């Protein structure tokens, strides 16, 4: 059974189901309670669960991220919401030095079953300090898992898996996806961490993307279809662990790959995908792998400049034309 839900409602449904089944799970963050969530993801949850389990925090990301980690190491399973992932920068030390390393520093004695979640990457014209694609920083860190769903069903299924995982899992959402609707399984349907999904089948080229860029890739694929190019779109869903098997199998069929993500081109998830595929499927490649990323500058405010910086369908299609046409 499925029902149609917006992305934000799917996230809420995941949290409610997990909080219903496990008293150790609670939600903490800025404005998650009385305000009903800065982006209404947690709307109604305070009324349902009460202030013991839906906890408004002061503006102190390092403090409440640390509180979550401390609660996790003694057996609770916190969901910590960052109003946006941009603000996790001031809690970076907590995530990097405490959450990611707890199990290692303790020689395996202490697990840190915590979920950090919130909207990530660009919104609309919110400027350089509020547009970061933080997944690149975090996917670098052993000890963390990072997921970035594009559709409501994956948002629910991945968040449920994240909450049940015994490791710190970072869930990258998108303000611009919160209103997207989709069919979502009712009840206890989990999406495993570390499995990509083929969002569109094609034979000429593979476009790998995640989060909002999956939708951009699908738009690009629609453009290319009219030109006779059949693009396969892989929605990575999970960035660490990364489903290299699905990527390699696709590239072995299409022989070409374009990777699309928000965030700067220097290093990052796209570079990681390129490394894996050239190592694991070198003989299958008929062209160099190209990346389409946010331009290598801080995000500008002006709408025309912002649009130019963030990958758009036409820029993705142009990259595809290069790998399909020139080689």
């Amino acid at each position: 059974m499925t029902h149609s839900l917006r992305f934000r409602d799917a996230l809420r449904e995941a949290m409610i189901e997990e909080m219903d089944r496990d008293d150790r799970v609670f939600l903490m963050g800025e404005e998650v309670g009385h305000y009903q969530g800065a982006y209404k993801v947690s709307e109604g949850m305070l009324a349902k669960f009460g202030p013991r389990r839906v906890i408004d925090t002061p503006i102190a990301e390092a403090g409440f991220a640390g509180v979550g980690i401390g609660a996790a190491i003694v057996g609770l399973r916190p969901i910590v919401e960052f109003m946006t992932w941009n603000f996790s920068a001031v809690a970076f030390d907590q995530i990097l030095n405490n959450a990611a390393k707890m199990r290692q520093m303790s020689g395996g004695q202490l697990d840190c079953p915590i979920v950090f979640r919130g909207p990530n990457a660009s919104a609309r014209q919110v400027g350089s300090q509020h547009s970061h694609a933080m997944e690149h920083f975090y996917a670098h860190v052993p000890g963390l898992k990072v997921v970035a769903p594009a559709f409501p069903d994956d948002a629910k299924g991945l968040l449920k898996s994240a909450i049940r995982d015994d490791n710190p899992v970072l869930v990258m959402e998108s303000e611009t996806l919160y209103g997207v609707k989709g069919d979502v399984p009712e009840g206890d349907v989990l999406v495993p961490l570390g499995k990509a999904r083929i969002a569109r089948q094609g034979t000429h080229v593979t476009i790998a993307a995640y989060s909002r860029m999956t939708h951009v890739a699908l738009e690009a694929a629609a453009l290319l279809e009219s030109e006779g190019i059949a693009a396969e779109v892989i929605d990575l869903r999970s960035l660490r662990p990364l489903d290299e098997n699905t990527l390699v199998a696709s590239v072995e069929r299409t022989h070409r790959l374009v990777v699309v993500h928000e965030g700067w081109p220097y290093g990052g998830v796209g570079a990681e995908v390129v490394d894996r595929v050239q190592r694991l499927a070198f003989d299958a490649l008929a062209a160099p792998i190209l990346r389409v990323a946010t331009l290598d500058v801080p995000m500008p405010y002006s709408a025309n400049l912002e649009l130019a910086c963030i990958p758009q369908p036409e820029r993705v299609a142009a990259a595809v034309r290069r790998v399909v046409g020139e080689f």
Partner: protein
Amino acid sequence: MRILLPMPTAPPLAPPALVPPERTTAPAQGAPPPPAGFDVEHLAALYRQMLLIRRVEEESARAYAEGKIGGFLHLYIGQEAVAVGAIAALRPDDYVITTYRDHGIALAKGMSVRALLAELFGKVTGCSKGLGGSMHMFDKEHHMLGGYGIVGGHIPLAAGVAFASKYRADDKVTLCFFGEGAVSIGGFHEGLGLAALWKLPIVFICENNEYAMGTPLSRSMSVEDVSLKALGYGMDRDRFFADDVLEVEHRISEAVQRAREHGTPTLVEVRTYRFRGHSMSDPAKYRTQAELDEHKKRDPLVHTREILAKAGVADARFAEIESGVEAEVADARKFAAESAEPGLDVLASSTYSGPFAY
């Protein structure tokens, strides 16, 4: 309106130490007398714990000089009465969390000398399988939740541990130790702020040993009375010298009781002194020999031994305690030396619970 604790009555705190030797006038009067009617056997047990910490640290310094221990080594020598007195105020199921100067606190919380020395030696039999080293002493069984290497970073964690106790209504108390060097960083303020806001069962213990690495109080804090930070958070506070281990136990017990019975946090500033440098690589040239000598007159071990002797503990008993400690340390040293190094197989399994996420 919260009722704040009165400032401590004894011993009087010296005026702020602009030039360190000036502040030694108060200590020269000696440590406070022990509480009337104290339990001699209890104090003897605390003395043994302090002596064990002292001897383990001395042995660690020796092993470091021999190249058996690598990296950083921050010794607890001089501060033993803080860990032993404070943890004596706890139940075994209460939690403790601290900084990188964690050996004494781990031992006081129940970690074996074997597990500690083996960790320092980088052996798989160490408390953290040789993955943590000196700064990361963890003992889940004894609720020793670790030493942490980023100054102040563990203070919000400590609040989180106390948050879990409140969430579960399990009446456990968390002790969070840190140095006065941590008072300037954000983690201290966010941790205290949240603990006070949410009324968490925790005692924040600032081990004020007068130096943040090589920087004295006078050059690192605009207000040298750390306990005053509690005022802004509406938190109870206390402040005293750590000369007497029973006094430490008594004062921390008050804060622990407040946490357990009323679920409220306390900031306690315990004035102490480390006899060694910040770490093994620090010759401590920022302080004078006269200052160090003056502090050594207040050595908590010497003080406790004097009290015990006055209470009738015979030399033979001290000899028995000392030989027992020596045997424990020698055994642990041998155990650490002979233990195996960790194999590569430990790396992946300690990074993730379950399959490695790559």
